[in-house]
């Protein structure tokens, strides 16, 4: 197991810059999940760490040793690919034993090591099969087994369960978590799936367009997004983001949503640090509070759409020219066109600089 440090790496494919000055440190035994839209450079980062892709600039350190110029085979890292990672001409047993042959482990140790991971992954009955006779889930189990058998310094996984169906993914997610807890391997895991990221990660790395946006614990990126991209990328349904203007003094301020005259009252400790630059307000649907009575500071509005989702509803309300989405208990409003009162929870509000997109936070 080892610590991985990435220092200011950049990567060009021809004229296209796909990684821009990416830096991060992954602690020994940590499980880091990289999350981002398709094409943002997650795979490229992972491949750079593994040595399958050279970097154009910057350094990669494993346990303090610079490895950016070393071959993949010299880095002692394991990689699980999204698909195609088992050799069709070898049995499951041979597949798992393959990395051990590279290090010339003797036959009996090899057998013991394969048996051990097969036990952990519960794939012992499959050892003599060819990969073509395995289900998708079992294939990925074997692929993870092959990655772990050598006890590499770190385990890199590129959407290892992305191709599986939903139920199986949930099950595999739990298994990967269990495996990580029992083995404690330094892991970097790439996914599109937020829930996967939230449930597996010690820390999440959010990337966009080759730029690292934020790195932090799951609740941190959710509760304290560093910028508008992260705010809107993390969480479902998506956070409401709207341009606002502030009116008022030290004791608090009215937050005016575009086209609305009345404004929401926010206390001073929430808005005191804002200095008058153009603002965007971000507020998650669960912080948009609907009520049937005229609560203090609430505005009377009309519902424009209701999405019943079983456990809860997503209700759209029009405030001025803006539509805010609210998460309510199931059946709270009966349909569109209904009059309700809307309030915002100031403690769950996020303010962003409208031009730079950076979060504006006070001392809290």
């Amino acid at each position, binding site marked *: 197991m080892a610590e991985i440090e990435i220092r200011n790496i950049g990567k060009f494919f021809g004229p296209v810059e796909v990684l821009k000055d990416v830096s991060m440190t992954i602690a020994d035994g940590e499980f880091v999940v990289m999350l981002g839209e398709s094409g943002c450079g997650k795979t490229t980062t992972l491949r750079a760490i*593994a040595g399958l892709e050279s970097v154009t600039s910057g350094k990669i350190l494993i346990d303090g040793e610079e490895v950016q110029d070393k*071959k993949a085979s010299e880095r002692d890292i394991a*990689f699980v690919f999204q698909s195609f990672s088992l*050799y069709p001409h070898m049995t499951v047993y041979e597949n798992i034993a393959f990395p051990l042959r590279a290090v010339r482990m003797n036959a009996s140790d090899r057998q013991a090591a394969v048996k051990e991971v097969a036990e952990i992954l519960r794939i012992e009955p499959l050892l003599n099969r060819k990969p073509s006779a395995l289900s998708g889930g079992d294939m990925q189990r074997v692929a993870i087994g092959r990655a772990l058998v*050598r006890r590499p310094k770190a385990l890199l996984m590129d959407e290892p369960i992305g191709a599986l169906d939903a139920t199986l993914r949930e099950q595999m997610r739990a298994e990967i978590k269990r495996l990580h807890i029992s083995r404690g391997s330094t892991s970097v895991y790439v996914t599109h799936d937020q829930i996967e990221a939230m449930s597996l990660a010690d820390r999440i790395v959010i990337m966009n367009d080759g730029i690292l946006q934020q790195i932090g614990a799951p609740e941190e990126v959710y509760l304290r997004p560093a910028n508008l991209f992260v705010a809107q990328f993390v969480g479902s349904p998506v956070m409401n983001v709207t341009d606002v203007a502030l009116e008022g003094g030290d004791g608090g301020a009215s937050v005016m949503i575009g086209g609305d005259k009345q404004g929401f009252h926010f206390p001073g400790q929430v808005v005191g640090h804002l200095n008058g630059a153009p603002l965007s307000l971000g507020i998650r649907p669960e912080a948009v509070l609907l009520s049937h009575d005229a609560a203090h500071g609430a505005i009377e509005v009309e519902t424009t759409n209701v999405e019943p989702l079983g456990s809860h509803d997503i209700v759209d309300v029009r405030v001025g020219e803006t539509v805010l989405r609210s998460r309510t208990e199931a059946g709270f409003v009966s349909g569109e066109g209904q009059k309700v009162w809307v309030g915002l929870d100031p403690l769950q509000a996020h303010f962003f600089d409208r031009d730079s997109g950076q979060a504006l936070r006070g001392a809290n």
Partner: protein
Amino acid sequence: MAAVRSQREVWTNRAAILAVLVALVVMLAPIYWITSTAFKPRNLATTVPPTVVFEPTIAPFVKLFVKRSQLREPVSEEVYDAAPWWEQMVLDGGEKVVRRGRTGEVRSSGYGKRFTNSLIVSIISTILAVSMGTLTAYGFSRFRVKGEDDLLFFILSTRMLPPVVVAIPMFLMYRTVGLNDTHLGLIILYTAFNLSFSVWIMKGFIDEIPREYEEAALVDGYTRIQAFFKIVLPEAMTGIAATAVFCFITAWNEYAFALIMTNRKAQTAPPFIPSQVGSGLPDWTVIAAGTFLFLLPVAIFTFLLRNHLLRGMSFGAIRK
């Protein structure tokens, strides 16, 4: 699956089977003809209508391998009885076995040597073309090669000139450098012929092998060469088998260059067989025997690789 097939489907199916049978008969007829003639006594080989039932003999094969000459008068009974069984077969045909003047050693017709030459040249050139082709294809497939498309087109273009056009210049060049009538000369020629084919076909197959296979091996601690031998080669086996069969057939059957470039030492079987039609009345049974033996290596080679070929012949289309 519908349990009941429509009447129409049944008839289409029967028509297809019939068509296949007809095609099979048409294609196998020459092979039957050659095979049966190779085992016929000489007097039954050219009867009209053809003899179908006969007692098979291996006399044509005996005659194929020894040098013979016409007997002016029949040999005496003692000489006949003293001769070994195979020589009696030749004598039965009104011919005698030619022996070397002093040692009495039987002189060979030269077929065995031509056949061996064919094997040497075809096998070595096939091995060279397939291995060089596979390595080249791997390079084109896995690395960024400057001007890749142009280079591949250039490789293909070596096949665009009809062989007759290059035959004379090749002959002159070969004569100058002393490659005329040598095994090496033919091997180089056939390897060059087959290489472009081999590169193109193998590139198709290797492109189909996901890079992740090798990359997994690379991170697992193998070098690229090891990954190539342990992962790429086994995965490309169907393609290699198909390519090898095609290259072997091309080299084995090649006639024009063999005729021009070789005459004695390195001559292969294809130019030799027709030369035996030769003077006088041709003995068709002997020619059929030579042709029959000539068909065997390709048949055996194809049979040995049949499992790979079934998948490989689709050139990657239904791989997996």
